[in-house]
């Protein structure tokens, strides 16, 4: 039988085919020296960004970043990468907007692709009270020079056509706040970009090196005990996110944080369907579409404390129910992968970036479910705090002692993920 040639088919463009190749080694892997001017505990985004700005802005390069696992394998590798600055209070506007501006120039600064995509964020309102709170937040944002708009349901539909804006669902969409400059970035690339620059500048990035204790002399910490031996230091900066309490307990320093599991998940790769980021506090899900095409979804924290880097299954069930109600087109999408991180939650849902009762110990923690967006901003201001031994104007409000003085920065409403 004669062979009939198969009809010419054009294979569809593979989503993500235009992503840059995975890079080769980007940083040196030195053995730790006996001593450093600054030891940063925790090689997540915050620790790496701090090291980069210590070198770049302050010329401080005799620095080690100590990471107990692999570089940026903690929350930095596990988050859903949403970046925005539409928080309520002036204090938050200061630091998150500073960070967003840095994101806008970060690719050039690092000389490395980070795939920052400013596709905007919709924060949905489902009740009259949601609407009022949202409008208030939009006004507060504008007074702080942050791009924010209130959009009605028909505009929500224009910005993100797949959102279910019908009025007969359990939590109808009554409108949304919209921040056009919000976006996502490729989290691993961000970490690698910072790591490469810091390493080039002379910072030692040391993996598999867990800090287990501190060597103290009066009000100073003169060294850290690690699984790779003792390392002396002039200053110590903690950037260990969900594990901070384990370290502060060793210092006899009480910090008002609770560690919780927070999980996220992704679908299989899909053609582009979801042009922006959509978050909903009331129905507890938020969604964006990654560069490659996965739907990336997150929900709230598990209610109980946990260091296990995994969350409870019922959270996923609720999150999926919410997602399918808001986005009926997702009903047939396959869930590919779920994972968890450990986030450190404070009583006012704002971070702690602060000096401590120790002369030379600095604390960065309490970013909870939302610290990825702060990565360049907190690196910048924390480096300033370490270099000058005094807070930068943007982290000055986020002291440890605000829980005693009562100057809380209550962001529960705008932190957007239930915690």
């Amino acid at each position: 039988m004669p062979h009939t040639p198969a009809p010419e088919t054009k294979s569809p463009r593979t989503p993500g085919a235009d992503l840059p190749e995975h890079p080769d080694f980007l940083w040196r892997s030195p053995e730790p020296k006996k001593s450093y001017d600054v030891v940063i505990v925790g090689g997540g985004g915050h620790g790496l960004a701090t090291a980069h700005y210590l070198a770049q802005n302050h010329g401080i390069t005799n620095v080690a970043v100590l990471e107990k696992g692999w570089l940026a394998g903690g929350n930095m590798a596990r988050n859903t990468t949403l970046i925005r600055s539409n928080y309520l209070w002036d204090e938050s506007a200061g630091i998150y907007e500073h960070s967003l501006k840095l994101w806008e120039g970060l690719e050039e600064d690092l000389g490395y692709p980070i795939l920052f995509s400013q596709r905007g964020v919709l924060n949905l309102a489902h009740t009259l009270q949601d609407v009022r709170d949202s409008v208030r937040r939009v006004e507060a944002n504008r007074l702080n020079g942050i791009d924010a708009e209130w959009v009605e349901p028909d505009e929500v539909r224009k910005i993100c056509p797949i959102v279910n804006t019908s009025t007969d669902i359990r939590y109808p969409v009554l409108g949304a706040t919209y921040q056009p400059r919000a976006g996502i970035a490729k989290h691993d690339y961000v970490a690698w970009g910072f790591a490469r620059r810091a390493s080039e500048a002379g910072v030692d990035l040391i993996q598999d090196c867990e800090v287990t204790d501190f060597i103290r002399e009066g009000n100073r910490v003169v060294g850290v005990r690690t699984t790779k031996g003792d390392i002396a230091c002039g200053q110590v900066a903690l950037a260990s996110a969900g594990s901070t309490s384990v370290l502060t307990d060793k210092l006899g320093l009480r910090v008002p944080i609770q560690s919780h599991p927070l999980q996220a998940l992704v679908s299989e790769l899909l053609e582009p369907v979801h042009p922006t980021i959509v978050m909903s506090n009331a129905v507890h899900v938020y969604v964006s579409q990654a560069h490659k095409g996965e739907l990336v979804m997150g929900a709230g924290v598990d209610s109980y404390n946990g260091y296990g880097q995994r969350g409870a299954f019922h959270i996923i069930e609720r999150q999926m129910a919410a997602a399918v109600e808001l986005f009926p087109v997702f009903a047939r999408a396959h869930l590919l992968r779920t994972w968890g991180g450990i986030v450190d939650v404070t009583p006012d849902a704002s971070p702690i970036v602060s000096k401590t009762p120790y002369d030379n110990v600095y604390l960065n923690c309490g970013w909870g479910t939302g610290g990825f967006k702060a990565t360049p901003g907190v690196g910048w201001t924390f480096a300033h705090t370490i270099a000058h031994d005094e807070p930068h104007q943007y982290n000055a409000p986020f002291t440890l002692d605000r829980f005693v003085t009562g100057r809380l920065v209550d962001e529960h409403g705008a932190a957007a993920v239930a915690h």
Partner: protein
Amino acid sequence: MQLIECPWCGPREEIEFHYGGQAHVAYPQDPAALDDREWAEYLFFRDNPKGLFRERWSHAAGCRRWFNAERDTVTYQFTTVYAPQEKGTVTP
């Protein structure tokens, strides 16, 4: 989802319970005598151990009673549950 043992109802699914944070945090005996630091400790500061933790749970969708539990915050496994007025056996 794990089963949690209510001291009164027996094992029930996790979703029936509400978490109440650290156990044995007593209301101050003489509130007027507290300074700001002590109030902050009472209101905002809680232990956050990696390992065994004594905490409060309520069987919200069942008998609605509060009880205490000791749980491992790494494995999430409950080691003991006990009534609020009890001290509980301390796991060494």
